[in-house]
C-alpha cells in the first residue's frame, strides 16, 4: 500500500470543524515524510445541518500520480481507516442525499481499521454496527462524542488523540513524531495537545472483528430509477396520505421511503402512554410530523421519521411523559405504543429503565450554561480525557420546568 485513505464520519455542525482538523492533520503529518495529500468532504452531504451524518476524507500517497487516482472523486471506493467521532453513528450513515442507510464499516478494506471514540464496550458498539463480509480491526479511544463544530469548538483534544492513534494504526504513513510536529505547528496546537496525542498512541485499544460479529440486519436500501423511468418535469409522487389505524380510530400517515433519519438522531423520545393527557402539543409542535394518533387518543412517535430534535419533550406539559434518551440505548425502530399495548407491565419496566438512566438522558451535543465548557474540559483533561462528563440535563433528566 503506497496510499493511505481515511474517512472521518461525523455529525453535521456538531463536529464539522473537528473532522476538518483531523483530515488536515493527517495530510500535514504525512507531508513531514514528503508525501502528497488531499483533504475534502463528501459534497452531497449537508454538514451545515444539525446532526446530519457526514464524511470528510484524507488521502495521502507517495507520488502525485498515485494521489490523482483518488482526486475528483465523490468519495473513495474503499478506505484503510474509518474514523467515527460519535458512536451513535455506529447505526450507519444516512445523509440527506437519499441513498439509503450505509453501514459505518462499508468502505473499510479487508483487514482495515475502524477507529471509534466511545465509552461503550466493543460488544455494545457491535450491536449496532452491521456485519461485514471481511474481518477488520476495531480500535477504541475512550471518549464521548466531542462537540467541536461550527459555532463552538470544545478543545477536548479529540482531534490530537485521533491523530496519535493513527500513528499507531498506520505508522508507515504517519509516525508519532511527525504527528506531534504537525500538531505543534498548527494554529490550534500546543504542548499539552502533543502530550495527549502521545497518550492516545499508548492507550489505544484494539480488537479483531470477525465476519460473524455485528448487527445482522440488512440496512434499508432502494434502487435508483433509470432516466426513462423517472417522472418528467422534476416531479415526484407525493407520499401516500396513509390510513386510519384501527376501525377508523387514530391515524397513521405514510412516511418517506427514501429518507428515514435512522442515523440522524442522537436521541429519541420515549413516551409514557399512561400519563399522556392527549393534549396534542407534541403532534402540533413536531417539525417532522412524527407523532401518529393512536386509537386511544395517545401519540406514538414513529421512528421512521424522527430526527431526534427534542421539541416534543420540551413542549409536553407532563413531567416524564416524553423523555429524550440516547439513541445508543435502542436496538430497533419498533413502535412503543404497540409494545405498551401488548404488555403494559413490561413496558413500564422498560420505560423506567430507559428514562431512569441519567447517562442516557443528558444531552450529548451542546452546552446549557455559560462556563460549562470550561468545567467539562477541566474534568476531561485532569483524568487524561477519559472521564465521562455530566453532559447537559435534558428537560426531563432532572425536572420538568414549564
Amino acid at each position, binding site marked *: 500500500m503506497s496510499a493511505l485513505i481515511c474517512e472521518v464520519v461525523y455529525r453535521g455542525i456538531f463536529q464539522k470543524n473537528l473532522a476538518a482538523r483531523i483530515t488536515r492533520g493527517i495530510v500535514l503529518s504525512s507531508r513531514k515524510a514528503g508525501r502528497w495529500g488531499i483533504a475534502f468532504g463528501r459534497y452531497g452531504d449537508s454538514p451545515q445541518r444539525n446532526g446530519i451524518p457526514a464524511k470528510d476524507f484524507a488521502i495521502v500517497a507517495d507520488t502525485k500520480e498515485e494521489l490523482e487516482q483518488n482526486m475528483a472523486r465523490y468519495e473513495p471506493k474503499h478506505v484503510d481507516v474509518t474514523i467515527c467521532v460519535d458512536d451513535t453513528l455506529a447505526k450507519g450513515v444516512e445523509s440527506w442525499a437519499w441513498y439509503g442507510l450505509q453501514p459505518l464499516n462499508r468502505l473499510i478494506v479487508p483487514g482495515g481499521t475502524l477507529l471509534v471514540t466511545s465509552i461503550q464496550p466493543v460488544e455494545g458498539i457491535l450491536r449496532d454496527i452491521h456485519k461485514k463480509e471481511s474481518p477488520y480491526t476495531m480500535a477504541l479511544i475512550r471518549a464521548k462524542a466531542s462537540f467541536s463544530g461550527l459555532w463552538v469548538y470544545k478543545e477536548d483534544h479529540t482531534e490530537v488523540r485521533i491523530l496519535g492513534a493513527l500513528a499507531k494504526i498506520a505508522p508507515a504513513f504517519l509516525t508519532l513524531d511527525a504527528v506531534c510536529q504537525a500538531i505543534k*505547528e498548527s494554529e490550534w496546537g500546543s504542548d499539552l495537545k502533543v502530550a495527549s496525542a502521545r497518550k492516545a498512541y499508548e492507550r489505544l485499544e484494539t480488537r479483531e472483528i470477525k465476519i460473524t460479529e455485528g448487527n445482522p440486519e440488512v440496512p434499508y436500501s432502494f434502487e435508483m430509477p433509470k432516466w426513462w423511468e423517472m417522472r418528467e418535469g422534476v416531479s415526484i409522487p407525493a407520499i401516500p396520505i396513509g390510513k386510519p389505524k384501527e376501525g377508523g380510530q387514530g391515524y397513521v400517515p405514510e412516511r418517506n421511503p427514501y429518507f428515514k433519519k435512522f442515523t440522524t438522531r442522537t436521541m429519541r423520545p420515549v413516551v409514557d402512554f399512561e400519563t399522556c393527557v392527549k393534549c396534542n402539543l407534541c403532534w402540533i409542535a413536531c417539525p417532522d410530523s412524527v407523532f401518529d394518533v393512536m386509537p386511544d387518543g395517545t401519540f406514538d412517535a414513529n421512528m421512521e421519521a424522527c430526527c431526534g430534535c427534542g421539541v416534543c419533550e420540551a413542549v409536553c406539559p407532563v413531567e416524564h411523559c416524553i423523555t429524550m434518551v440516547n439513541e445508543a440505548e435502542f436496538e430497533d425502530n419498533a413502535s412503543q405504543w404497540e409494545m405498551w399495548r401488548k404488555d403494559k407491565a413490561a413496558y413500564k419496566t422498560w420505560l423506567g429503565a430507559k428514562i431512569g438512566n441519567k447517562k442516557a438522558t443528558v444531552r450529548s451535543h451542546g452546552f446549557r450554561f455559560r462556563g460549562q465548557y470550561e468545567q467539562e474540559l477541566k474534568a476531561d483533561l485532569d483524568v487524561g480525557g477519559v472521564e465521562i462528563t455530566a453532559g447537559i440535563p435534558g428537560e426531563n433528566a432532572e425536572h420538568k420546568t414549564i
Partner: protein
Amino acid sequence: MTPTATQTAPAVGEDKELLISGSEAVAEALVLADIDVVTAYPIRPYDTVMQAIAKKIANGQLVAEYIVAEGEHSQFEIVKHASMVNARVFCGSSGVGWAYAMECLVVTPPLRVPMLALVGNRALDDPGAFGVEHNDALFVRDLGWMLCWIDTSQEALDTTLIGYRVAEDRRILLPLAISADGAFLTHSQALTMVPPKSKVEKFLPRYDRGDLQLHPDNPITVAPQANEDWVIEIRRQNDEAMKRASTVIEEAYADFRRVFGRGPENPWFEEYMTEDADVILVGMGTISLPIKVGIRNMRAKGKKVGLVRLRWFRPFPTDRLVAALSRAKAIGVIDRDYSFGSPFYSGVVANEIRAAMYNAEKRPPLLSFISGLGGREVTLEDVYKATDLCFTAANSGKADAKTHWLGVRE
C-alpha cells in the same frame, strides 16, 4: 487557549506551502494582488471564496472594501462601478446566482470592465443541486467575457494573478470568469505553493484605466444610450479587444514563468501524452484527473491515448488546438455541459471544436460525449468506454453522428 506554535514562517522571498482548497487559493491570490473592492452574495460552491476573503480581511491580511450585496445582480453592478473609478475588483457566483446577475454580466464587456469573477461551477436549477456543470459560466460565452477553466488549487492561484494582468491590460479591459468545478476543486484541499508579494509585484502592475477612468479630472460619460448609427461599431471594438487578448495572454504566461519559475508554456491547453496518441480526449476542468489516470492505465496495455485539457475557452485557441488535434486518428470530446437541440445534440465544447476543425486540412473523426452532469463522478469506466468508441472510429475513419451520454442510468 493561546497557541504556542504557528506555521513556520518561510524565508523572505520564498514560496510557502499551504494545504488549501481551490477557493482558498483564489483568496491567497487576491491578497497578493491587493484587490480594492470585493462584493459577495452567498451561493454554494462560490461562497467558499467569499468566506476565505472575509477571513483574510478580518485577520488583517488584506485591506479592501467588502460589500455584501442584496443579490447577485447588485453584486456584479457594484464592482462594475468600482472598476470604473480604477479599483481592482473581485466577485463571483455559481449556477442560478450567476444567472440572476445576467443583465450586469451582459453590460460589462462593452463598458470594458476588467472584473475578475470566480464561477464555482454548479448545476442550474431545476432540480436544485450543488454539483458541477459548466453551463453556468457558458452563459456568457458569446458576450465578450474571457473564460477559462482550471483543475488544481495551484492553477487557481496562478490563474487569478495572470487573470488580473490580462484583464486589466489597456489593450483588453475585458471581464474574465475563472471557472472552478464545484466540490472537486472549490472544496478540495491540496498542497499549494503561495508566492511572496515581492514576486507578485514584479509580475502584476497597478491597474490603470487611464482615459477611461471616471474621475472629476477626467470628465467622461460612460454608457450613454445609442441608436443604430453606433452599436455595430461598439461591437466591432469588443471583437478587436478579444482578438488582442490572444497576444496579451501569451505575454502574461511567458512573464509568469520568468518571474515565478512555474506555469505552462502553452497557456491555452494542457497536452498530456499526446505526442504519439492515436486517440485524443478533450475536456475542461477536473475531468482531467480521471482521464489522466485512465490514460496511464490504458497506455500500460499499449493503447496510445492522450488528453487535451482546454484552459482557455474565450478567446478560443482555434489555430493551436486544430494543429494539436489534427495529429490524432480520432478525437473524443467529453463535455460537462449540454446544449439541447444543438448540432448532433452535442455539448458546447464538442460543437466549438467541430466548428474550429471545419476548415482544417486534416479532420479526424470527432466523437461527442456528455458526462459528469450535476456533480456525478466521471469514472475510469466512463473514460475507457469513450476511448474504446474513439478507437472504433479511428479504425474505420468515420465517426458516428450521435452524442454518447456516459454514466447515466439507462
